[in-house]
C-alpha cells in the first residue's frame, strides 16, 4: 500500500469555507474551513457531538447551513439542495441506515440507476426490454455485497448488517467521484467488516474518493490516506494519518483533557 503525501492546499476537492450550523442556539458546526482532496480515502474523526454527521449532512443538502460557502471543484455554493448531490459528484450513506424499507432489495438499487428526467422516467421500464445495463449494474453490485439471493425480499426484512451493506451498495450503484459514508463500520460483525473494507479499497483502486466517518481507530489507521479531525464543532486539523493521530491535541480531544 502506497501512502501518498498529502498537502491539503495542493489539491482542490471539496472545500468548505466558514461553514456554520446552529441547532437552536447550539453551534453544531462553528466556522469550519477544511478541504477534502479528490483522491484516496479520507476519514473524518472526532468525539461524539463534534459535528461529523452534521458536516456530511450540510455537504449533501440534507440540512441547510446558516453561514459559509461550500466549494466543489471550481463552483461555490451558498445553498446546496439535496437533489443536486449526484450532480456535484457526491453520494452518501446515513448513520442510521435509511433504505427504502417497503421496497425490494432489487428496487432499492434500481431506483438509484434509472432516469432522472420526470417524463422520460414514466416511459422507462427498466425491468422489461430496456435498461439491460441497469440490471447488469444492479446484479453486479448485489453480488458484490453478497445479497444476490436476497434480491426479492423487502429491505425492512434484512438483518442490520445486511441493511448496512445494502446501503453502501446503493451508494456504489451511483457512479460518482465522491462517496461519503457515515459510520459504515458501526455495529458490523468482523466478516462483514472485512467486506466493507474491501469495498472501500476497491473504490479507491478505481480512482474514486471515499470519505468516511468512524470511531474505530484501527480501521482509520488501516484504511485512510488522510484524516480530518473535528472537535466540538470546530476544525482541529487534517493531514496524514500517523502524523495526526500522534498529535497531543488530538489525543487530548479524544481522551477528554
Amino acid at each position, binding site marked *: 500500500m502506497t501512502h501518498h503525501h498529502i498537502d491539503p492546499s495542493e489539491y482542490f476537492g471539496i472545500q468548505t469555507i466558514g461553514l456554520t450550523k446552529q441547532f437552536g442556539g447550539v453551534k453544531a458546526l462553528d466556522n469550519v474551513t477544511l478541504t477534502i482532496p479528490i483522491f484516496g480515502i479520507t476519514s473524518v474523526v472526532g468525539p461524539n457531538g463534534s459535528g461529523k454527521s452534521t458536516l456530511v449532512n450540510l455537504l*449533501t*443538502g*440534507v440540512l441547510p447551513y446558516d453561514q459559509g460557502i461550500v466549494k466543489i471543484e471550481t463552483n461555490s455554493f451558498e445553498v446546496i*439542495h*439535496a*437533489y*443536486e*448531490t*449526484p*450532480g456535484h459528484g457526491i*453520494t*452518501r450513506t*446515513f448513520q442510521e441506515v*435509511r*433504505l*427504502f*424499507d*417497503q*421496497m425490494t432489495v*432489487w*428496487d432499492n438499487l*434500481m*431506483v*438509484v440507476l*434509472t*432516469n*432522472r428526467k*420526470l417524463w422520460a*422516467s*414514466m*416511459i*422507462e*421500464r*427498466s*425491468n422489461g426490454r430496456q*435498461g*439491460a445495463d441497469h*440490471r*447488469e449494474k444492479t*446484479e453486479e453490485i448485489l453480488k458484490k455485497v453478497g445479497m444476490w439471493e436476497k*434480491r*426479492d425480499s423487502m429491505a425492512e426484512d434484512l438483518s442490520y448488517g445486511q441493511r448496512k451493506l445494502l446501503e453502501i451498495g*446503493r451508494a456504489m450503484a*451511483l457512479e460518482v467521484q465522491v462517496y461519503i459514508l457515515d459510520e459504515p463500520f458501526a455495529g458490523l460483525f468482523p466478516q462483514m467488516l472485512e467486506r466493507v473494507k474491501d469495498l472501500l479499497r476497491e473504490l479507491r483502486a478505481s480512482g474514486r474518493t471515499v470519505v468516511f466517518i468512524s470511531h474505530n481507530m484501527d480501521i482509520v489507521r488501516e484504511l485512510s490516506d488522510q484524516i480530518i479531525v473535528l472537535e466540538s464543532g470546530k476544525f482541529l486539523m487534517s493531514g496524514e494519518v500517523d502524523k495526526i493521530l500522534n498529535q497531543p491535541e488530538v489525543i487530548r480531544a479524544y481522551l477528554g483533557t
Partner: protein
Amino acid sequence: MNSSPATTNASLMARGMTALREKGDIELYANVFVIAWAVIITLWQGTGFAVTLGTVFCIWAILSVSLNLVVGYTGLLSVGHIGFFGIGAYGMAILTSDTSYELLRTESIAQFGWPFFAALPVCVIAAGAVALAVGAVFNRFRDDIYVLVSFGFAIIAFNVFLSWRGLTRGAYGIRDVARPKIGSWEVSGELDFLILCAVFLLIVVGISWFLVSSSFGRVLKAIREDEQVAQVFGYRTTFYKLAIWVISAMMAGLAGGLFGSFTTFVDPNSFILLESMLLVSIVILGGLASIRGSLLGALAFVLLEEGMRFIPFLPSEFVGQARQVVLGVLLVLLMLFRPQGLAGRYKL
C-alpha cells in the same frame, strides 16, 4: 438474457411462490368472496340492477384506483379527492346541460349545451389545473398535517359547489346533464353506459399500471419510503409528487364527468366530506399500493350496500349508515391486523 433475474423460469416460479406465501390467504379469500357476492347479487336482483351497480362500481373504481396512486404509491394520505370528482361532475353538468332555469324562478346559470365528448376533456383538464395549483401549495406538508389540509381542500370545494350559485346553482343542483353521443348512436341505455364506463375504467387502470410499473412508479415508492433519501439520489421529489397528484386528480375528474352524465343530476350533496372519507376507506380496505386491491375495494363497497339489506330488522333507509358502520369497523380491524389492507403491498 439469463443474467437478468426476471426472465428465468425457475426464479419466476420461486418468486411467485414466495409472493403467494407472503400475501397469505386473506387476499385470495377476499377476492373469491367479493366476486361470488357479485354473482349472487346479479342472479338475485336481475341483470338490470347489476348493470346499474356495475356502472356505479366503475365510477368508484376509477376514483379509488386514482386515489391509490397518491395514497398507496406516493404515501400522501389525501382525504380531499372528492373535490376533483366534484369538479369533473360540475364541469360536465355546466357545460352540457342546456336546460333553462328562467321559468323555475331559481338562480339561472349560463348554458353551453356542449356534447358529452367535448365536455369530458375539459372536466379532466379543469381537475388537473386545480390540482396543479392545490398541489403546489400542499407539496410541503406531510403526514397528519397533509390529512388536515386535504380535509380543507374537500371542504373548500364543497363550499364552492354550494355557495357559488352563479356557476353551480348551489343547493338546487343542475339537471338534464347530457348523456354521451357517438355519431348517431346515443349512449342512453344503461348497458351502453356501463360499457362506456368500463372502457374508461380499463383506460385508467391501464395508465395507472403503466405508471406504477415504470421507473417513475419506483421513484414514487421511494418518495413514500423516505423522501429525503430520494432527493439525495438526485430526484426532485416535489415535481414527482406534483405530477402524480395532477394525474390522479385528472382521473378523478374523468370519474366525475362520467358520474354527472350517469345521474344526469348534479348537486353538492354528492361531494360532501363523508364521501371523501368513504373513498379513503375503500382504498385502504382494498389494499394500499395495489391497483387490483382498489378494484376489489370498490367492488366490495358497492356490494356492501346490497349486503346490508340482508340484515334483519334494519329499516331500508339506514342501509347507507349501516354500510358506513361496517366500513368503520373494518377499518379498525384492518389497522389492527393487516395495515396494508386486503390486497395491499404497502403497510401504512
